């Protein structure tokens, strides 16, 4: 019976922390507490726990923090407020401009300008030409290849040194080489 009363008292103690008790419940609790040291101590412990928890509530970060908060939230809200239709329009304009540029570049490529100089082509394109030469015909005037071997000879164990030594190369080696040269 006492145990049952203690369990009831414990429940009332916790409820008393916030919602409060009815008069009957309070009378019941107080009567029990005067006769039960364990529950009286429990009341103190629970109050202590709640008090300790309250002291651990987060501290206010200060005015400077709130100022920064307000500024960045305001900026974020302003960004959201921009009519999304405006962004769609901007994207459409950007896409149209890109199409025009692409058309102009393609036209220049196909009309074949007379002053076009191989030296001014992007290096990657030269490597491609190099590869095609390796695949479809004997190596002639291998300016880029020899230059590359010369540059990299200082690295011991490089496969290009082996190429120089035994005079043998294959498609894969040339591909690797051009990659190394151009990166």
């Amino acid at each position, binding site marked *: 019976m006492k145990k049952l009363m203690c369990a009831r008292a*414990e*429940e009332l103690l*916790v*409820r008393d*922390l*916030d*919602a409060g008790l009815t008069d009957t419940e309070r009378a019941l609790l107080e009567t029990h507490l005067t006769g039960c040291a364990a529950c009286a*101590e*429990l009341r*103190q*412990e*629970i*109050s*202590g*726990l*709640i*008090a*300790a*928890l*309250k*002291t*651990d*509530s*987060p*501290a*206010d*970060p200060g005015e400077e*923090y*709130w100022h*920064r*908060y*307000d500024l*960045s*939230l305001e900026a*974020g*809200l302003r960004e*959201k*407020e921009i009519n999304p239709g405006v962004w769609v329009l901007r994207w459409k304009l950007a896409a149209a401009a890109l199409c025009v540029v692409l058309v102009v570049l393609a036209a220049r490529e196909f009309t074949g300008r007379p002053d076009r100089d191989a030296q001014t082509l992007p290096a990657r394109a030269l490597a491609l030409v190099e590869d095609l030469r390796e695949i479809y015909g004997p190596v002639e005037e291998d300016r880029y290849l020899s230059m590359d071997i010369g540059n990299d000879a200082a690295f011991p164990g490089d496969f290009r040194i082996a190429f120089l030594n035994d005079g043998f190369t294959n498609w894969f080696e040339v591909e690797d080489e051009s990659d190394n040269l151009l990166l």
Partner: protein
Amino acid sequence: MNDADLVRDFRNGNREAFAELVRRYSRPVTMTILGIVRDNEAAKDISQHVFLKAFEKLSGFMFASSFKTWLYRIAINSARDHLRRRKRDFTVELNEHEPEPGPSASERLEQLRMRSLLRAAMEELPEKQRLTLQLRIYDEMDYKEIAGVLGGTEGSARVNFFQAVKTLRKKIGGIDEKTYVRKSRGAAGS
């Protein structure tokens, strides 16, 4: 003007109505998030994300709950998402929140130790119990509000609070009501 009126005003195109809602809730919502994530900068980012989301979604708000409940629900879920991504650090910094003016150095150390123990013990509580305890104690929400934010009934929020207190008491033992340090007798879980 109450929150519902402000929400309606905002939906009718009054931007200032949303600014008023921000003024009412930005600090309490940020403090709630801070209580959960314990990181000022993360709390700021999460809180701003909450208001930006509210700004975006308010047009679809159906008034099934109060604006406050709706907003806190977004806040709690965002804070939970953050915690899922990053493990919470519950060490207590010395420069945090003075519990009591002018305690002695040893008392102060003991209080900090107590807080670390409390946070560690809270960390081990089931999530709903922990959040219930935080909303009840740090944010002073009543059980009805807690049920609205976390889901469930007022009764289940009360039970969760009760269970959380019981578990903490079992883990930590007695805490002196005035000094907030553990009573030497019956101490547990150190």
